């Protein structure tokens, strides 16, 4: 009697073992293909891009800017840009508005800090206007309305004037947050 139940028990154990090993091996096989590529797919998130030293880039001559502080749009041509495997040289990477006050120059990124649309300069009202979600900015880049979609003013970046030439450190910043954080 007990012999018989032992036999039954060991049979049941054996079956349990088979089922659990089968499930384990099948699951491993089913998950492996996806798992083998997970590190590669997540690779971009693990690469830190914001910490690299931003190089100085020559934009234009001081003499080209109107002295009354009217913004002028310039292409920013970077000496070297890496896009995955390709290294580009002297390639347009964005645009800035430059305004002049005496010998001081301020550079504003063309991209709206809200969601990255290109901002227009409006001559008639002498201000900046984003045509996507209607954010408006004063000439000094500050937000002009209380309920502006943009959480912060236009992004400025480091500038310097040397021998009449304007240099900037061209940078992009994270959109739609109150603080200016480099991407």
């Amino acid at each position, binding site marked *: 009697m007990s012999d018989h139940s032992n036999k039954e028990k060991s049979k049941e154990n054996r079956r349990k073992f088979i089922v659990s090993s089968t499930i384990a091996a099948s699951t491993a096989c089913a998950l492996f293909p996806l798992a083998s590529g997970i590190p*590669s797919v997540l690779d971009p998130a693990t690469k830190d891009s914001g910490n690299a030293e931003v190089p100085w880039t020559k934009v234009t001559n001081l003499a080209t800017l109107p002295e009354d502080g009217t913004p002028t749009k310039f292409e920013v041509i970077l000496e070297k840009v890496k896009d995955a*495997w390709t290294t580009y040289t002297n390639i347009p990477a964005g645009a800035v508005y430059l305004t002049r006050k005496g010998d001081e120059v301020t550079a504003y990124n063309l991209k709206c800090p809200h969601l990255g649309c290109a901002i227009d300069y409006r001559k008639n009202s002498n201000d900046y206007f984003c045509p996507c979600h209607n954010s408006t900015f004063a000439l000094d880049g500050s937000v002009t309305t209380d309920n502006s979609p943009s959480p912060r003013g236009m992004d400025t970046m480091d500038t310097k004037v040397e021998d009449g030439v304007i240099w900037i450190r061209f940078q992009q910043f994270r959109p739609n947050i109150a603080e200016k954080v480099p991407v």
Partner: protein
Amino acid sequence: MIKGIMDWVDDRSGIRGLVKEALYEKVPGGARWRYVWGSCLTFVFFTQVVTGTLLWMFYSPSAQTAWESVYYLQYHVAGGWFLRGVHHYMAQAMIVLLVLHLMQVVIDGAYKAPRELNFWFGALMMGVTLALSLTGYLLPWDQKGYWATAVATNLMAEVPLIGPALQKIVVGGAEYGHHTLTRFFALHAGVLPASLVALVVAHIYLFRKHGIHVKEPRPKRDSYFWPDQVLKDAIACSAILLAVVALTIYFRGAPLGPPADPSNEFPARPEWYFLFLFQLLKYVPAFWGAVIIPAFLALWIFLQPFIGKSKGGHQFNVGFWWALIAGSVALTGMAVSEDRANLKHGAAIEEADWQAERVIEIADTQGIPPAGAVTLLRKDSQNQGRRLFAAHCSSCHRYNGHDGRGFPVDEPQSAADLAGFASVEWITDLLNYDHYVSAKYFGGTKFKDGTMARKVLAKYTDDEKKLLPSIAKLLADGANLPYEENLAEDTREELLSLYYNDDLKFEDGRACIECHDIDSEDEGSAPDLTGYGSSEWLTAFIENPEDKRFYGKKNDRMPCYGRDGKLQEKEIAILVDWIRSQAAEF
């Protein structure tokens, strides 16, 4: 709660019934290892679809970005090499499993009625799988894939009537380029896998309809697919997985050769499982290889179920497949052994390995321009130098005994081996009479019997010979070789006085300086050795060895590359840089 959701889903989809039907299929005679191949192939195909889709996130099909994107994945993306490796070796496993599955079906007679249709589906799937291998081989756009696929698509032109048009359609034009890659990629990642999925569904449906073809005698009581057979299947799949992971880790992923370059020849060889076809084409006309033999095989596969029904037909079928496999193995063996015995083939492979390493080194340091990585190799003086040497110098000169690129040279050597030219070691040997008149230096030229050999080097006493290494040091100093250090100023002065004085002289009492100028304004009767082996000296020499500064009228067959426009100034500069760049290997 979970049961509630399951009930809800089951109520609307009938999923439980479906799963039950899938898992509780009867396996007459119990689970057996011989039934695992189909499941293994399904698993391998599933892996290929998943890893292939992941690879898709990195691949860019165009002539300037295909190799580059693969390079980036392989060397600059975390785990990229592993993902590529799994896809690559799994593809090879798939071919092996296909053959095993096929042979299982043939030996067990599972191709016979009522399973004819499924046998043909299987054969079709085999064709699609081979097409997947072929198209995938090209995608990295490296030398290997480029040249081998060119052969495969040229075979396509052998198809009667539509061949040339078919080739153009597949290649996307008359020449290989962007559209070859976009088309091959669409085939490899879209058309072919989709066809295979459809065929797999049909194959499994038909398989379920007729049930397992049971090989008699039955070893055990009948059981069900779950869990007994699934366990065996899962163990076999895990074994394949482990083998693929082991291969991937051992070889550090899939190989990536130098970028495709139509101007840089490479011996086209297909992937190993196509080698038998490659070898066959050495014996039969391309038309046979591309059309007649495949057509015959297709017809034979179609007829096989009917042949199998006749008396002795099954044995004939089995015998035929074994013969086919044996023939393929033999042809593969011949292909491999012929390549092994071919020194030039070995040199070409070695050169390609070198180029692959080189281009990766340059890409890592300089980056890849938009024009693509192939331009890096074309502009690289290391790569161009050896090619120029092979093309213009190696019919007389050698470099480490070969043609500069590593290939053996058919013509006998008739001028000096220039590996390590103008280094201390090279000049020391040159000044040894036995070496001077050997093939490695001037043995193949008329200078073997010249004044320097007969009246100078042959006549040195043992005491004089002891001074020769110092002379070599002095001369090598003038070469300014990048891999040798310059002498200190006072050492140089000391050696120079040795050169000028009478310690080393002809039997008639003259010193080196009497014939060979060094740092002096006079014109001797032999080549001026001021700055011997330097960039300036070597450039001027290659431009015009007949100049009175060098051999003058005594020049023995050395062409005036610059004077006669045989090489451009830029090419001579590359050649000079390359000859001077590294020490000899022996």
